[in-house]
Every structure is written in structure tokens, then in C-alpha cells.
């Protein structure tokens, strides 16, 4: 498969076209077509995962040809250690979320078509190494998201959808400007990220600072980093389950991925200078603030949303630490957050489908009625707490080990949040699943086979990565170590002298 990346990106597009051309009679075919597409995608992702060469930092599975020569825009796809794990994650989460969507019973064709478009957009972001291409995918993914939240969402869906759209567009236009700046004032006019990174030292430090901050805001909105995070709870609360899964599982990662791919690789000097504040401090705020807000939520899904904000903070703190441990841990955390949060949102969806509300106070003693569900939730919650032996533990430990060597104080706060996290998760678990049974929910069915099918694979991955993190870390380490070296080896002062 010489064009693996093109395939993996455009299979969903093909699926979208097929779905749209389905006659109304066959509209149930939509779900199966998308399932097959997502399945193929997952297979290709596994193939890439298997054939990925972990020893080199160069881009692999490269697909490249000139697109707009006059403006040095090329169709350039490739994966390296930074992105390969994300490709895997995206394929996985999309596959899961297709099955999580089977409950959708309104305008299925449109729904699955948009889902596929979203899938393609996300995959494209992770595989494109041409900044222009990257940006195209980055924005394309907004449209289906808007409709998926807006049409199939909850009561306040219109507000949530437009808020998400406006907020993220604001971010991406800043990225657009920064991109053009990089294009014109670099060593040569190009959008090729690898080339841009190679000539990183060419930008004056002042220029780097400005562009860095513009890019940071653009990406921070996606992460989402405090104080740009308020779109997330709304979006999550209104979005249908599968979309929440994708939102939390993949979309948020784009922010941190972008920071690694662009801010770190192309603007090392500014990164070296600004990371402590914009990534370190804000990341720590994310961690603590998210956890505290989660504690006070009364809506189950909103609580999970805030916890996911909190967990993304570890990623920021980790990449800000400039240590091999921290940055490895951060990317691993991106992966783990993807799987674990996906589980959590599926689990929230399970109970919402049955009870049609998410008021934590309204539940109680569900463990008696739905033991398997309760058990699965317990598993996911403890995974979210970073319980040793489960995947999140490894990533958080690596992040904190790394961060401790750079910012001990922040690390203490971040580590202390483990207590708060345990606090709100256990309290929630207690209020929903334990204690006397609320008779109102008598007769609720336990996990259906389909729900189980969406949850179990994730659970297994969480378990495996807990005892054998090498599966993912092996992919990352080389590239990230190199990236980290690049940043550390370009002290801001040297650049300043250079110009």
C-alpha cells in the first residue's frame, strides 16, 4: 500500500459519497457503509502501526505531489512519531463512534455522511505535513461538527453549535495569518512543514513571539485551554453521544498536536521562551480548575466534560517540561485521554438513552439494576483517576516526573489534583450507582451487546497500555526526543543575536 495515508484519509470521503447517493429506501445501509469504511480505516491504521519504523524521525508513508506550484502548495502527507499514534487513535475512535451512533433515528443518511466527512477531516489534520493542507482539513472538520451538534443535538443545540463554530473559527483565522507569516518571512516561501522546521532558526525572535502566540491561541481554543474552554461544556452537553466521543476523543488532541507540530517544530526559540507560561502555567490551571469545576457540576455529562478539560492540562504541562519523560508522557496522555474519555462519554450516553436526563442527583443505586454497566463505569472512573496498572497512570506519571524536573511547584499542584479527581469521580459514582436503589429506574436493561462492543475494546486497550505502554511509547520516543532536542538546543538568546 504505497498510498496508505491518502487511502486512510479519503476512504471516509468515498463512503460519504456512496451514502449520499443511496436511494431513500436503503437509508439503513448508511450505518453499515460507514461501519465498513471505518473498519477499513482501522485496518489501514493498524497496518501503518505495524510497519512504522520507530528508529527514524523522518516522515514515513509519504505521499507528495505539487498542488499549486505557483504558491508552493503541495499535497504532502506523511506520519512521524508525533502523528502516528494520533492516526491510530482517530481510526479507533471513529470506528467506535460509528457503532455508538446506531441509536440515531433521524435523517440517518445526512448524519452518517457528515460523520464520515468529520472523520476524513480529522484524519487529514494528523497526516498532512503541508501547512496549507493541514489548515484545509483543520477547517473542513468544523462544518460537519456544526451540523452534527446543531441538528442531532440536545435542547440548546443551536447555541452550542454556533458557539463552537465561531470560537474555533476565531482560532483558525489566527492560525491562517500565522501560517502566511511563516510562509513569507521564512528562509524560503513554502508551506512544507518539514522545510519550515528545518529553517526554523531563520525567523527573528520578535516575529517568532508574535506568531507563536497567534498559533497558541488558535490551538488553545481547541485543547481547550483556560480561559478559552467554555465552548466545550456546552458542546458536550448538547452533542449526541457519538459526537461527544469524537469531540473528546480526537478533536481536543488536535490542539496539542498542532502545538507540537507547529509551535515546537517551527518556532523552537519562542517555544523555549514562552512555553513555561502558556503551556506550563495555563496547563496547571487547566488541571486544577477543571477538576474543581467538575466537582460542582450537577449534570453528569458536563462533569465529564470538565474532567476532560482537567486531563488535557497534563498534556500541556508535559510538553512544556522539555524533558523526554514529560513530552513522551504528554503524547501518551493524548492517546489515553482519547480512549478513557471516549469510554466515559459512551457510558454517560448509555444512561441518558434510558433515563433521558443526566441529573446526577436524580439517580441512585443503579449498580443493583445494571451491575455490568456499573462495573464498566467503575473501571472507566478509576482509569480516569490514573489508577496504577491502567494506561492513564503511565502517562500522568511520565508527565509529572518530567515536569517535576522543570517546574516542581506546578507539579505539586498537578499531582495534588489526583486527590480532587478521586474526590469528584468517587462522589459521582457513589451518588449515581451506589446507595439505595431509586425505584424509578426499575426495569432498565443492562448494557446491550452493541454498547458493550463499543466499550470493551477501549477497556482492553486501557488495560494493556497500563502494563505494556511500550506499544505506543515505542512509536513516539524517537521523534519526540529529537523534537525536544531541537527546542532545547535553540536558546532564545542565540536567535536574537542571529538577527
Amino acid at each position: 500500500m504505497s498510498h496508505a495515508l491518502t487511502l486512510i484519509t479519503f476512504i471516509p470521503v468515498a463512503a460519504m459519497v456512496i451514502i449520499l447517493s443511496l436511494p431513500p429506501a436503503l437509508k439503513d445501509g448508511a450505518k453499515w457503509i460507514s461501519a465498513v469504511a471505518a473498519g477499513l480505516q482501522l485496518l489501514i491504521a493498524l497496518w501503518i502501526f505495524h510497519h512504522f519504523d520507530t528508529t527514524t524521525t523522518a516522515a514515513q508513508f509519504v505521499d507528495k505531489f505539487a498542488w499549486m506550484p505557483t504558491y508552493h502548495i503541495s499535497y504532502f502527507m506523511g506520519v512521524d512519531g508525533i502523528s502516528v499514534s494520533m492516526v491510530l487513535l482517530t481510526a479507533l475512535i471513529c470506528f467506535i463512534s460509528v457503532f455508538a451512533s446506531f441509536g440515531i433515528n433521524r435523517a440517518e443518511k445526512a448524519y452518517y455522511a457528515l460523520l464520515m466527512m468529520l472523520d476524513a477531516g480529522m484524519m487529514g489534520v494528523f497526516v498532512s505535513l503541508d501547512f496549507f493542507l493541514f489548515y484545509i482539513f483543520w477547517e473542513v472538520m468544523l462544518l460537519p461538527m456544526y451540523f452534527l451538534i446543531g441538528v442531532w443535538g440536545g435542547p440548546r443545540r443551536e447555541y452550542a453549535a454556533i458557539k463552537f463554530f465561531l470560537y474555533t473559527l476565531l482560532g483558525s483565522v489566527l492560525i491562517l495569518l500565522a501560517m502566511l507569516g511563516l510562509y513569507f518571512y521564512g528562509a524560503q516561501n513554502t508551506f512544507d512543514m518539514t522545510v519550515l522546521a528545518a529553517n526554523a532558526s531563520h525567523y527573528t525572535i520578535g516575529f517568532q513571539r508574535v506568531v507563536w502566540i497567534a498559533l497558541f491561541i488558535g490551538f488553545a481554543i481547541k485543547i481547550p485551554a483556560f480561559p478559552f474552554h467554555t465552548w466545550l461544556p456546552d458542546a458536550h452537553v448538547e452533542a449526541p453521544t457519538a459526537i461527544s466521543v469524537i469531540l473528546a476523543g480526537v478533536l481536543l488532541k488536535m490542539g496539542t498536536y498542532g502545538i507540537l507540530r507547529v509551535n515546537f517544530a517551527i518556532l523552537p526559540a519562542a517555544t523555549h521562551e514562552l512555553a513555561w507560561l502558556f503551556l506550563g502555567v495555563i496547563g496547571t490551571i487547566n488541571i486544577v480548575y477543571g477538576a474543581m469545576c467538575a466537582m460542582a457540576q450537577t449534570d453528569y455529562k458536563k462533569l465529564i466534560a470538565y474532567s476532560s478539560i482537567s486531563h488535557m492540562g497534563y498534556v500541556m504541562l508535559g510538553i512544556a517540561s522539555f524533558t523526554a519523560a514529560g513530552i513522551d508522557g504528554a503524547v501518551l496522555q493524548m492517546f489515553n485521554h482519547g480512549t478513557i474519555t471516549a469510554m466515559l462519554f459512551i457510558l454517560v450516553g448509555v444512561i441518558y438513552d434510558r433515563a433521558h436526563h443526566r441529573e446526577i442527583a436524580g439517580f441512585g443505586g443503579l449498580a443493583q439494576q445494571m451491575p455490568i454497566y456499573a462495573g464498566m463505569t467503575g473501571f472507566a472512573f478509576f482509569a480516569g483517576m490514573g489508577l496504577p496498572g491502567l494506561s492513564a497512570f503511565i502517562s500522568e506519571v511520565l508527565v509529572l516526573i518530567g515536569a517535576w524536573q522543570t517546574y516542581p511547584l506546578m507539579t505539586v499542584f498537578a499531582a495534588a489534583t489526583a486527590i480532587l479527581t478521586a474526590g469528584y469521580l468517587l462522589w459521582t459514582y457513589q451518588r449515581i450507582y451506589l446507595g439505595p436503589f431509586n425505584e424509578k429506574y426499575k426495569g432498565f436493561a443492562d448494557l446491550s451487546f452493541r454498547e458493550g462492543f463499543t466499550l470493551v475494546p477501549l477497556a482492553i486497550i486501557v488495560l494493556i497500555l497500563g502494563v505494556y505502554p511500550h506499544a505506543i511509547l515505542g512509536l513516539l520516543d524517537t521523534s519526540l526526543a529529537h523534537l525536544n532536542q531541537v527546542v532545547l538546543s535553540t536558546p532564545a538568546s542565540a536567535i536574537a543575536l542571529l538577527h
Partner: protein
Amino acid sequence: MDHPVSISIVRYIVVLPLIGAAINFLAGAWLQKTFGKRIISVLGCGVVALAFLLAVREFFAMLALAPDSRFMLDSLWPWIHYGGLDIDIAFWLDPLSMVMTLVVTGVGGLIHIYSTGYMHEDESYWRFFGWLNLFTFAMLVLVLGDNLWLMFVGWEGVGLCSFALIGFWYKVYPNTTAGNKAFIVNRIGDLAFVIALYSLFAALGAVGHPTLVTREVAKYAPMLAGMPGYLGMTMVTFVTLMMFAGATGKSAQIPLYVWLPDAMAGPTPVSALIHAATMVTAGVYMVARMNFMFVMAPATMTVVAVVGGLTALFAATIGIAQNDIKKVLAYSTVSQLGYMFAGLGVGAFTAGVFHLMTHAFFKACLFLGAGSVIHSMGGEQDMRKMGGLRHHMPITFATFLAATLAISGVPPFAGFMSKDEIIWQAFAHGHTVVWGMLMVGAGITVFYMFRQVYMTFFGDFRGTHEQEHHLHESPPSIAYVLVVLGLLSVFGGLVKIPDFIATFKPFETFLEPVFSSPLTRQVVESGIHSRGTEAALGFVTFTMVVLGWLVADLMYRQKTIDPERFSAAFGGVPYNWVLNKYFVDEFYDFTVVRPYLAMTRALAWFDLHVIDGVVNLVATVTVLVAWLSGLFDSYVVDGLVNAASLVTLDVGGRLRKLQTGSINGYLYGILAAVMVILLVRAMLRV
């Protein structure tokens, strides 16, 4: 020590309970439904028993080795080899972990068997054994992990199991609250522990040997001597202090002991296994394991000793006034753990570990005895409703009494051997204050233990009639276990006899290699060695014991002294405080819990109304501006027009009806614009 014998059997000791747990969780419900509870019992107990046998086998294999090469490594697969870490999933068996393994699998196995009887009526029998097995597994990982992260895996794993088992009867809300409390308070300790690990790793990295493999740490720790740490302490002091802070959480020392009494909400076997015999001793084990670092930080050692002593005394006093049969034992556990830490703190590592072991015997026996009592009392736990049970359940009574004598430190029972040693060492190493506290504590211990015995087994029955009718000796599965543990409490201490009696201490020699770092040796050796003094002090201690017994006897058996007299003393204030555990829970509630919750609510409000408010405000303002500009277009400019036309008194234009809407307004707009433009230009020019 540098060339550990690699053998591939330790892993089975660890894995067996895991298999049991896995089967129980995945298929337990089905098995129980199809084949009945028996198969669960066989499975649950079988794996642990098997693990015990393997452990024994290893024990003899170890004895066969030369003392200073009694180290066995079993490495499974690489775990984290990134970011400077290089740690494997590997197990490390040395005399210390050997002892722990034997205790965990041995006592643990007994308690498993006991549970088959005790939990027989419970419908989710499989779940109970699943968690019990998982606990055993986690505890073994904690004990055998060859690096500190693996140890931490077990450390948190036992926490998880304890959480799940405390809240085992989750339909009763308070039980689950107790579980949460246990887990969260433990997390506070864990925070300190991980910080210790982070800084230790960073420090070792600074000296060029980044590692967290315990034996490696032991090798390179001396290089950290004198390295500055945080908060103005040396690195070693900081690390060890943090480690000890972690221990106070797991092992229920001041100030984090508060979760343990509440943990009694769990089924009694759980209290026996987790909250008396094994898990709570993890802290002690960890300190002993890291002895080579603690001895480098005298300050920390003192802290350990003092906190230990304080806890021993403090918890004992609370024990006096409890009426719940399990609560008394809970506080006594806290107190006994205090003794162990005191032992470690003064430098008597062996004694500490020794007491750990004996305590596992007699405290398990006590708890299980109490369980047996509760069982026959139909769930009643209040001692004031008991009495005279010795007639109804002789075996329970006998074993309970044996264990009581053991904990009281009556020679030659197990407790005497270990506890007396600790108290003596405290004096010998010059910690007179600690010694004093331990002395008094010993006396009080005897008092509340005998108070319990008398209230429960002596006098006449104070419960209801059907309870009395229902009273019976527990089934064999329970009784036999009690007997075994009773015997252990009697003879278990004979492996290390105080010097002033006889020179027989195989236990100490066995553990020798673990505490063999030169500095440790030095610390251990230091202090006075005089059998005379030791004997004298031993006698003093004994008199304390007798005293304590006497008071209890007078108060609760002969009833010649009325307890009320004491409880009423000083207007009942001291009694009230003791009864309410010095209001520590309430104190934490008001200083920590409530403020935190209030704060989170405030933050959530802030997030919703301020941060999100700003976002929405921006939107609103934009729209508002748009609206205003719209107004300007259509009205203000028009208004200008009218004004102007009034000025020009164009009455005709007003009468004649050919009006032109807001065109003039537009034109005014242009004029204004041109003016602005010229102005801008003027500004640009200058």
C-alpha cells in the same frame, strides 16, 4: 546482593490470586449461579493457599542460600523504559519481602477460609472473593515489586480493594461514604509518596544514576548525602519525610488516621485482613524497605519515632471509650501501628517488622473473634448489648483471650516479644519521651482490651431475648481459623526472644541482610546494650500491664469501681472529648471539606458567569454595536435632516408631499465622511 539468583517462580505467587480475581469477576456470577457457592470458595481460597505453599517453598529455598545472597529476582517484561526511567515488571524476593509474603498469603489465606463461613449468606459472594483475591494480588505486588513504581502500583491497588470492600454492602449509603473517605485520605498520603518518588528520581538523575529500582536506589542513595533539597531541607530528609507522609496515610498515623475507624463499615474479614493484618502495615514495610535512606536523615527518624509514639498513645486513649466492638479494635490497630513506627523511628527496624508480624497474628485473631461474636449476635456490634458470651461460644472466647493477652504484651505471648522489644529499643536509643508514651500506651492498651473482653464475654447477657436464643458457637470454618490464629498469637513470637531472657533470635538474623547497609548497621548498633537495664525496664512495663488489667478488672468484672465516676470527672469534658474522638473528624470537616466544596461551587459559578459571561458579552456587544449602527443609518442621520430642514425653514418642502425618505440623510453621511477623511488626512500630514 549484586548477583541475585534469578528464579522464575515468584511470579506465580503473585499471579495466582490475580487469576482467582479475574475468574471471579468475569465468570463468578455465572459460576455461582450454576455450580453454587462452593466452587467460588474453592477457587477463592485455593489460589491463595497455593500461593502460600509456593511462598513456603521459596522460604526454604531461601534458607538454603547463604545469608548474604538471599535475594531472588524474577523479571517479567520491560515496563517503562522512556524518559530516563528503566523499570520492568519484576519481582524481588528478599528476607523482608519473604516475611511479608508469608504473612500476606498465610494470614490472608486463613481469612479467606474464614470468609467462606462468614459471608456465606451474601448473594454476591463471588464479588467478595473477587475483591479479596485482587487485594491479595495487589498486596503481593506492593511487597514484591522490585522498583518503587511497581510498589506504588500495589500501594494504590490495595487502596482500591480497600475502597471496594469497605463499601461492599453498597446499598447502605454510609458504607460507600466510608469507602470514599478511605480512598481519598489515602490519596493525600499517596501525593506525598509520589512527590518523594519524583524528587528522588530527579536527585538520582542529578548524580548521574536516574533509577527507581529499589536495590539500585540503595546502591546510589549514599551519593545524595548533603544534596540540598526543597523547603530548606536536604534532599534525603525531604524524600524520606515525604515517604513517611505517604506511610501515615496508608498506615493510619496522625494526622491521616481518620479513615481507618470508618473503614470498619466493611465486612469483618475485610477489617481483619486489610485494616489490621496486611494493608495498613504497608507503610511500615515501606519504611523498613527504605531503611537505608531513613537512616541518612536523623531528623526524619525522630519524626517517625515521635509520630509513632504519639499515635500509639493518642489512639489508645480513644480506644478507652468506644462501645462498638470493632471500633475498639480499629483504634487499637492505629495504636499498634504507632508502636511499629516508633520502633522503626528509633532504629529498631527488626523489632518494627517483628511487631508487624505478631500484630498480624493477634489482631487478625481479635477481629475474626469479634466477627464471630457479631455473627452470632445477628449483626449486633454494640458491646453494651453483649455479655457472658464465654458460655455460649467457648472457642471464640479462648482464642480472643489468647489474642488479648498477646496484644497486652503478657509474656510469653507473641505481643510481648515484639512490643517489649520496641519499648526497650526506644529507651536504648535515647528516645526517652517516646519511651514514656509507649509505656503509658501499653498500660491503656491492656485496659481497653480487657474492658472489651469483660464487656463481651463476662457478666450476664444484656441483649434481647431472641438474640440470646440465637447465640451459638460459629461454624468450623470460622472456629478452626480462630484456633490457628490463637495458637500463632501464643507461640508466634518465639522466633525472637528478648536478650535478657535468652539469646534466641533467628528472626533477626534472617532479616539481617536487609538492614545491612553500613549506616543502618551503625544506627541499629548505637544505643545502650545492657541486659540489666533491659530487664528492669521490662519489669516496669509489666507492672504497667498489670495495672491496666487491674483497673479494667475492677471496673468491668468486679464492678467495684463505677466507670461513671471517671466519665463524669471534670464535668465529663475529658470523657466527652475521648468519646467523640477529640472531634478530629469535625475539625477536618470544617477546615478542609466544607471550604473546598464551597470553593468549587464558587469556581463553577465564576466559570459560568464570568468567563463564559465574557464570551457571550463579546457576542452581545457586537450585535449591539451593529444595532446601533443600524439605528444611526436610519434615524440619527434622518434626524439631522429634519433639524437642518427646520433651520432652513423649508416649509414648502414640508407641505409639498414629495418626500424622499432618508436620502438627505445618506448625503449628510457622505458629507460627514468627506469631512472625516479630510480631517484624517490633516492628521496624517502633520
